């Protein structure tokens, strides 16, 4: 901060002040990783809510009655394949093949969009059946946890679209590589959280 103040006031050149601090290499990646770790806490607390409230149905529908396992299987497959195709995009990025990279990114984005569409469809179906988030503590915790994950995926898609425009316009520059590496971590992280969701919320939930 003091460096910029000196620069703007009188161009005073001091040997002890640099106009720009050298960036630590890969600082953004570590910073983004720490953001993901803090996101873990958000999801962990929502998982705890579901663990505690998952059986408090207040006489309403139980998990076994409202959760759709075949639909869940499709959703899980979509997200897992999307995670792998994003990995393929990263490999193409390393080889500096822009078109192939953009194609894999588009595939990942479309798979994630299909995931979100199916999830919204499932949510609307549940609300139409009278199993909305206001029905019971179980459904509140369910919609909060799964909805938060879905919101993350939606934001990831938005980020992906913006980044694809940037990559198309400016190519595989150092800054774009860094951004794509962050998004890659975000993408895989959401698939990792989904493992917890489908195992704990759905599969274990319908048996409790």
């Amino acid at each position, binding site marked *: 901060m003091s460096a910029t103040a000196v620069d703007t006031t009188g161009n005073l050149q001091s040997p002890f002040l640099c106009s720009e601090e050298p960036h630590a*290499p*890969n600082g953004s*990646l*570590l910073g983004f*990783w*720490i953001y993901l*770790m803090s996101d*873990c*806490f958000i999801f*962990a*607390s929502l*998982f*705890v809510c579901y*663990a*505690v409230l998952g059986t408090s149905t*207040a*006489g309403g529908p139980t998990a076994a009655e409202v959760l759709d*396992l075949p639909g869940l*299987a499709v959703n*899980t*497959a979509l997200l*897992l*394949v999307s*995670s*792998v195709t994003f*990995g*393929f995009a*990263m*490999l193409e*990025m*390393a080889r500096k093949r822009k078109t192939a990279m953009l194609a894999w990114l588009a595939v990942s984005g479309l798979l994630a969009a299909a995931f979100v569409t199916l999830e919204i469809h499932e949510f609307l179906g549940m609300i139409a059946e009278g199993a909305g988030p206001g029905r019971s503590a179980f459904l509140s915790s369910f919609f909060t946890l799964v909805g938060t994950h879905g919101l993350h995926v939606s934001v990831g898609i938005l980020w992906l679209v913006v980044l694809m425009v940037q990559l198309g316009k400016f190519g595989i520059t*150092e800054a774009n*590589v*860094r951004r794509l*590496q962050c998004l*890659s*971590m975000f993408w*895989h*992280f959401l*698939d*990792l959280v989904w*493992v*917890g969701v*489908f*195992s*704990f919320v759905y*599969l*274990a939930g*319908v*048996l*409790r």
Partner: protein
Amino acid sequence: MSHSTSHDLAHGHEPGHDEHANHGTLRSYLTGFALAAILTIIPFWLVMGQVFANHWVTITIVLALAVVQIFVHIVYFLHLDARGEGGWNLLSFVFTVVLVVIVLGASIWVMYTENTLMMPMSPQYQHSADT
């Protein structure tokens, strides 16, 4: 450690190493995909096929497989290892896991114990609580 710029140079004399640290390899993604698919199909089969009569056996296996799959994702997709960012990635991850286990484990323990220690509700209140 600036991977993006030194990548092409590093690729020449030390193939594989630099790629693994950043974006993984085709093999790592395919291995991860195969393992994740197997670890997903087994719990779905256990629950949808109603393999075990005892639900708690199924739940335990499903959750154990989920933990295994989470580690598969971390290793093969997120490429977490002790080398990345000088070990800080791994360190912050371990810190998070410890705290999450404390938060999750302790909260569930406390809340379930509290549930079992609650006074049983008399029937008329039970009815009003259910509706």
